[in-house]
């Protein structure tokens, strides 16, 4: 059974040349990867296949012998994903190993058709599995990129700022969906603890619409903040939103609302025992 692998391993050098040759110009993508890098990747993959014991099973990629090959292909796919290759280009890289191996097997088998057929079937499904592995890893790599970007975007969209000692503000901009509101809620509450703030101002001047679900989330945030010992002030409610809130029957009775962020800030200052006063300018007519 392991004959095929044995044949591959004995002809490593000639196979490498044939494999490089069989890679169509289209999938080489010289714009994305240099010839030297491609050559060294190809060498590495082939060397890894050749380094396993000759009796390793070709039908089971999960076998311990293939561990390092799996790892190499996975990291190769992930790096290709970030280089801008398509999944099929990445799979074709592996699949292009087929024809040189087939040619090699054909050479070795001579006229024994049964032997040839058995070997080709075996190596065919082995290389298919390798190609599928690159596709899986490729998608996994993409997913990681997407989820990292999502996290970064959510972090960007929730800037909690300290206005004064003990007063934080969360200026919300853009449409709020349920997932974002939840993140906003958590980071505001976290900021309250971290900055030890008794007052939190949620300013929704930049929010175009508020639906029932978002309003409920805002109310829950305000209630949770109260349970922690902080007071929330909602500011910047646009007239349309005020209308929606009333039409939807959302009860904002227990929530302190102010028209402008500055009014909310003033209230928070007052409640924490501070006032803002204008310093009288001394008029000096002679100067």
């Amino acid at each position, binding site marked *: 059974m392991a004959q095929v692998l044995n044949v591959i391993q004995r002809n490593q050098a000639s196979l490498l040349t044939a494999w490089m040759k069989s890679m169509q110009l289209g999938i080489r993508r010289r714009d994305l990867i240099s010839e030297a890098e491609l050559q060294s990747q190809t060498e590495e993959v082939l060397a890894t296949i050749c380094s396993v014991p000759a009796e390793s099973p070709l039908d089971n990629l999960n076998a311990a012998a293939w561990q390092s090959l799996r790892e190499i292909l996975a990291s190769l796919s992930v790096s290709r994903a970030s280089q801008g290759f398509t999944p099929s280009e990445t799979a074709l890289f592996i699949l292009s190993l087929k024809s040189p191996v087939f040619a090699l097997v054909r050479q070795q088998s001579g006229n024994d058709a049964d032997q040839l057929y058995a070997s080709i079937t075996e190596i065919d499904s082995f290389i298919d599995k390798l190609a599928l592995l690159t596709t899986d890893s490729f998608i996994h790599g993409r997913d990681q990129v997407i989820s990292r970007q999502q996290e970064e975007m959510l972090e960007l969209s929730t800037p909690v700022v300290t206005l004064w000692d003990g007063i934080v503000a969360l200026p919300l901009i853009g449409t709020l969906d349920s997932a974002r509101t939840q993140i906003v809620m958590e980071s505001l509450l976290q900021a309250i603890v971290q900055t*030890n703030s008794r007052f939190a101002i949620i300013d929704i001047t930049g929010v175009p619409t508020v639906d029932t679900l978002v309003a409920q989330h805002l109310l*829950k945030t305000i*209630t*949770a903040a109260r*349970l922690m*010992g902080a007071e929330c002030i909602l500011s910047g409610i646009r007239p349309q939103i005020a209308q929606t809130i009333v039409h939807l029957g959302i009860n904002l009775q227990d929530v302190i609302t102010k028209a402008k962020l500055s009014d909310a800030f003033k209230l928070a200052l007052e409640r924490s025992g501070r006032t803002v006063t204008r310093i009288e300018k001394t008029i000096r007519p002679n100067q």
Partner: protein
Amino acid sequence: MERIPILRMGNLLLVTIQVDMHDKLALTLQDDLTAKIADLGAKGVLIDISSLEIVDSFIGRTLANIASMARVLDAQTVVVGMQPAVAITLVELGMSLPGIRTALNVESGMEYLQQTTSPDLSEEADVDRED
């Protein structure tokens, strides 16, 4: 029997809950606290729950009961240090504990209790008025 210690500071009582309370322990705390308030004539109770990883409806209800009972016995209760995750969960659960006073930490909780319970404060205010 396992008990949660209650500290006395002047006319205030201080409780720090640090263990994952089973229901009976919570009820024992309720009994002990009400007895202590009555015995010592305490005017304020501060319960620090900053180490609690969860507050379920039973513990929430016990806290609310303690606050109500203390009020009947003429003492103010303030619950301090609830963690954000605990607060979010409690709200989601449907408990907003409207009757309970809260504060961010022991320091601001004590400040609140001293302001609302100190007899010296009203006397000082009188003195100010005479001036």
